[in-house]
């Protein structure tokens, strides 16, 4: 297993939105889901997860409610809101465009300049 890479600035929000878009999750579940999807290649600071969740909720992209966890414990579940869904799509498109541009720049050879 390769050493996990640190998260790029500003991408945690997008990853959280993606994680909860697949179904309601509690905070720890968001962490597990991201690690699972990324196949443990991303290192997420657990301490920074919750401020991000609170920020997204404050902005109205996600909403929360108390529910019961798999092992019958009270846990707070996050869901994507309609506004959050639109936001997530917009962010995804932006990211893809950006990634294309960056990739294009980085793959440029001396002959193409």
């Amino acid at each position, binding site marked *: 297993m390769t050493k996990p890479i640190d998260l790029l600035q500003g991408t945690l929000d997008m990853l959280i939105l993606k994680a909860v878009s697949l179904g309601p999750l*509690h*905070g*720890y579940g968001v*962490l597990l889901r991201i690690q699972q999807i990324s196949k443990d290649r991303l290192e997420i*600071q*657990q*301490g*920074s997860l*919750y*401020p*991000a969740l*609170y*920020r997204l*909720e*404050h*902005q*109205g992209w996600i909403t929360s409610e108390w529910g019961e*966890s798999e*092992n019958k*414990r*009270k*846990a*707070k579940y996050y869901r994507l809101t309609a*506004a959050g869904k639109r936001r997530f799509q917009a962010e995804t498109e932006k990211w893809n465009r950006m990634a294309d541009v960056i990739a294009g720049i980085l793959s440029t050879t001396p002959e193409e300049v």
Partner: protein
Amino acid sequence: MTLWSRLRSWLRTILQRARMESEMDAELRFHMEARAEDLIRGGVPCEVALRRARLEFGGVESAKEECREARGAGFIESLLQDIRFGSRMLRKSPGFTAVAVLTLALGIGASAAVFSLVNAILLRPLPYPESSRIVLPELVSPPGVNLGSEYFPWGQLQFRMLTRDANPFQTVAAFQNDSFNLTGSGEPSFLDGFRASQEFFSTLGVAPALGRSFTTDEDQPGHEYEVILSDRLWRERFASDRNILGRTIELNEYAYAVVGVMPAGFAFPRAEEMPSSFNFPREPLLWVPLALPAEPKPGLSELAVIGRLKPGVTTQQAQAAMDLVTRHAEEQDHRWIGWFNTRVVPLQRQVVGDTRHPLQLMLGAVCIVLLIACSNVANLLLTRSLGRRREFTLRAALGAGRARLIRQSLTESLLISVAAGAVGILIANAAIYFVKMLGPANLPRLREVTLDLPVLAFALAVSLATGILFGLAPAIGAARDNLADSLREGSQKSGGSRMSPRLRNALLVSQVALALVLVVAAGLLTRTFFQLLGADGGFNAERVLTFQLPLPAVKYAEQDHIVTLFGSLLERLRVIPGVQSAGIGETVPMGGEGESTVIRMPDHPAASQKEMPFANFTVISPGFFAAVGTPLLRGRDFQETDATDSLPVAIVNKAMERKYWPREGALGKQVGPGSTRFPLLTIVGVVPDVKHASLREETAPEMYVLYNQKPWPSLLNMRVALRTKSDPAAVTGSLRDAIHAIDPDLPLAKVATLTTLVDDSMAQPRFSVFLLGAFGVLALLLASIGMYGVISYSVLQRTQEIGIRMALGAQRRKVFGMVLGQGARLAGLGIAIGLVAALGVTHLMASFLYGVRPTDPLTFAGVSLLLLGIALLACYLPARRAMRVDPMVALKYE
């Protein structure tokens, strides 16, 4: 949508703070426990799993702080925290908090009260619509003519010229005070009122609340029997009867139809709002038409004039227009030259009048108190912040940002100032209540004083500004500190930067200096007050009863009739048991100004009519001087043998003798009224100067004449003075009986003892002394608290040093002296600066003083000693504490 969710989240933060916090805790605990369970499943031993989970998570507290901020509630959250923490800190040192809050509250309360007075009396417009357009055109005495007052009543002819020619005015009205004997409905009573021309009410812009004002027809001689009542008279005398309109009431034995009732609170003109020489009644209760004759009488009259300027016309323009009228009149008739000088005075300025000066004095005094209070609180906060330096540096070391530290200490001082503002408002309210109760009745507009919004805003602004200013300084100091150094040093020893003791000393010195200025001012006023109490008014006020005897003009049209009445009245009064002597006079001492007139003296012929001398001219009866206790200096008193047909005689006061016959004396000299229709009188006696309105007045020349030797003025409004053997109140009953035995319709007015009259005349100086004295005591108290704080802090700081000195053999007495010396040096410096400042300031209050110079050395020296004594007393406790320092304890202190 998102805006709404943000708002909701803020609201939730504020309203459900506790729930949000516990939910956050639960969520994070769930995270940690779930992680620990996973770790256990992965093979990590139970005991270490939770610990590992925590380590992986990182700083829980900082994550929580970030969460709170993420929720958009960081500011509110930490503000609440600051307030909670701040109030806990303040509760932990209740002594400091109480002193700081009380000090500031006293300053704020006192200044809010004085500002309310100033606002209501000086700044707020008068309660008349567009009151800035209302002016009083006043006649000014010709230059070189001394009437005892610069004002001069308008004559009928002059008023007619004014209405005809001068027209900066939209409307102009004349009025004249008069007394009315109300009979026919209950006990006869004597009412103060005014005869007013038709435009009087429209000039003021106030219409009757009930009925109408006078018509032009009613303002004509022969048709003037209509009356407008004041709200108070209507209420008290006619039981607020709405059917009063059209009914007739009997005034001075004429039937008057009631045509209107004025709104509540209207009582123009009140005595205190007009020049005092007009001698107007305190509060008019009714108005009747002036009804000037179509052919106005030339010569003197007793009119006052009020005008409403046309829109856009300034006082200066009005003055210019009036000057034009004057010149025009002088060109047409040379006799007018010098006798038609006018001055246009805005009503507002007239009403405020002489009150401006005492109020400015109060304003200055209260500003000093506020300054002392603020600098005291600043000193307290500074001292405290030095004591808490270690706490602040520790918090900085633990990661508190500088901004956060500053905010923290700001919050604390703001808490103090908000609390002080609240207490200050209570104090201000109480103070206003007392001022309204105890304030002199002649303070204009006193009844309008309230603690209003602008004043509240002012008080709050002052308290907040103080809080911010003096909360910031220590916080910035703390934030700038070098962490490592501060932590290494002991909290006691490190007295802050070298600047702060100097700053604190400077604050203290300025407090002492300011207090000195204030107390010197209060001392000068107090000495003035006692000088006035001891001043010789030319009479003896003890056991003297006075009252006014207004005679109905219809019944007593003949002067002989009045003379007979007075003769039999005096006879009857003198035999009342308990009466020592009785006399009748046109005025009584402290009863107000009397008449003055042009006089002629054969041995002082006037070069021209303009240079004819004036003198007060007072009609009295034999026995008057004995009754009011005026001793005869030379010659003889009036006697019963001075009859209508015997030699006409006069008595003059010392001022008159000194002015005209300084060497040879006045006895045997001749003097008479200006008009040659009256005979010359022979001066038979000289009496001391009797004061009329105030004990501080400069007495003018005065001559007394006998009521039964055909004097010039009318005798319709005389006063009676009775000297009694015991309590004057005991004779009032038999007095009424005696008067009503002669004429049952005669009303008695203004029954008062001479002591009461003197007391009333002292109301204003007493009030000033009371207020300024209160401020002085406050200033002394605050300055001594400041002194105590600074010295005891410095002793605390120097504990170690004092311990070493003692260990090296310093004597306790010497240590005691050293601390006292430190206090004395600071106090001495403050006193020196204060003395210089006081010398510069007290000459401004020369007009308030009587019998004391503004640089009175006794007051200056006394106050300096007092202040030094109080300063040393304030140092005494800390000095004793220093003396008791145990060298061992002090050295181990670190």
